[in-house]
């Protein structure tokens, strides 16, 4: 990427964030209340949290849980999606159940998770997986079913059949749709994990959600933790999935490059 292009890519989101901070500073100045500390106060709370290591430790542990939950959700969701895309009877019988899981608020799983796994980290991870894999499954089914018939026909006339046809033609053709599913599942996993950590206060465990739960009395620290959560969410969505998705689309000529 040329420097000019980097500026063009990065400038708009930075301007948006700066604008949000300015609005926040103005509102905080007008309100002048301990419930809404100024950006500067939160910034120093953030530095404190980073300084004593509590925030860093919580962030690392949360990211490990997130990576694990997301990986399980992707493997489970994608394989289920592929299986359901291939078999019409299975799809028609099981897809409604997946849709039901998808539209159930993930917080609703917390009580059951606690009954099954106790007040533990496993309960939190369970909520994150159940909250995110249905999106992956539904996106995979959709992506495979939307592969243009011409590609399958071309693949078959080239001698690809059965599993080979799926491996060489159908799955690669479905990649843009699967990418959209990854991005969506990531968002759900992140939200569900935060909800789980916030509610399931496992003894001795730490994480960004756990920190939020403990910082109710300390508004600047609470907002500092919230800022870290926001930044992680945006960074992953924008940098990881956004750029990967655009790379795939550009390669296939699905993005119009205006130079």
């Amino acid at each position: 990427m040329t420097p000019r292009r980097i500026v063009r890519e990065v400038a708009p989101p930075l301007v948006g964030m700066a604008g949000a901070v300015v609005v926040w500073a103005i509102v905080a100045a007008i309100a002048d209340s301990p419930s809404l500390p100024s950006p500067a106060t939160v910034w120093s709370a953030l530095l404190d949290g980073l300084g004593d290591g509590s925030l860093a430790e919580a962030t690392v542990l949360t990211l490990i849980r997130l990576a694990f939950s997301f990986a399980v959700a992707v493997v489970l969701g994608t394989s289920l999606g592929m299986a359901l895309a291939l078999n019409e009877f299975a799809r028609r019988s099981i897809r409604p159940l997946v849709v039901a899981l998808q539209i159930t608020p993930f917080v609703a799983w917390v009580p059951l998770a606690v009954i099954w796994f106790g007040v533990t980290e496993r309960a939190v991870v369970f909520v994150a997986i159940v909250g995110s894999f249905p999106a992956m499954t539904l996106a995979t089914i959709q992506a495979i079913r939307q592969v243009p018939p011409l590609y399958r026909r071309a693949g078959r006339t080239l001698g690809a059949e059965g599993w080979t046809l799926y491996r060489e033609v159908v799955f690669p053709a479905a990649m843009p749709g699967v990418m959209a599913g990854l991005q969506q599942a990531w968002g759900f996993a992140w939200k569900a994990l935060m909800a789980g950590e916030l509610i399931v206060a496992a003894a001795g465990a730490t994480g960004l959600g756990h920190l939020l739960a403990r910082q109710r009395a300390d508004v600047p620290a609470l907002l500092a933790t919230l800022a870290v959560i926001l930044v992680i969410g945006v960074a992953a969505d924008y940098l990881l999935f956004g750029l990967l998705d655009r790379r795939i689309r550009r390669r296939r000529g699905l993005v119009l490059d205006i130079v």
Partner: protein
Amino acid sequence: MADRVARLVELPTPRVPKLEVRDLTVSRRQSSGEVVTAARDVSFQVGVGEFVCLIGPSGCGKTSILNVLAGLDTPAAGAAFVGGAPITGPGPERAVLFQEPALFPWLSVRANVELALKLVGVGAAERAERAATWLANVGLTAEADAQPHELSAGMRQRAALARALACEPAVLLGDEPFGALDAQARELLQDEVQRAWMRSEGSSTYLFVTHNVREAVLLADRVLVMSARPGRLVEEVRIQAPRPRGLDDALVARVVTEVHDLLMGEVTP
């Protein structure tokens, strides 16, 4: 009129059939749910090494017949054979050139050709070599590493031709592959197809579907003319003008006029 056409051609030598359709009826379901018979009781053979064009007005079922021969569709009645064996599905010995180039957009031009070779079990080193050869044959050496969307429509269809021919199929089926191209690109591709067929020296059988008389006369040894829907075979024109042919050849131009008149007489109800 048919007599005038016959004067331009010689009697054919009998050939072993490579492709055959027997009493073939093809129908398709329209979006309204109504089933339409596109072609009825069509029988013909295409000899080994022969280049045949199937020509007829839109909707006469010529593409459906081609799809049956490709093994992509099943007929409502009748049967289709390749090398004497009933066709039950697609196979790499029958390559298809679709109206759209049907290149895979996630692969480079070279990788598209290499995939076709991989699917018939060619080893990696030989794949690279044969893909390079075929891309050179269609004049796309410089574009080998481009993605399909970066090429012009004509180049894409030439890449599709290279992909179809790289496996050296016994049969090449063309479903109006020149239809969506501009005049220059079409002429270039027709030339590539004709040269590829000549290069095979009687071992490859080509069957192309078209509604363009000039194209059919330019390319084919024999033109099969179909009527409007439900399509039936109504005329057979043998063309033995010397190859390589060009659209400007006097003989080709004259046959085009005559076949065109013939076709107009047949398709006008």
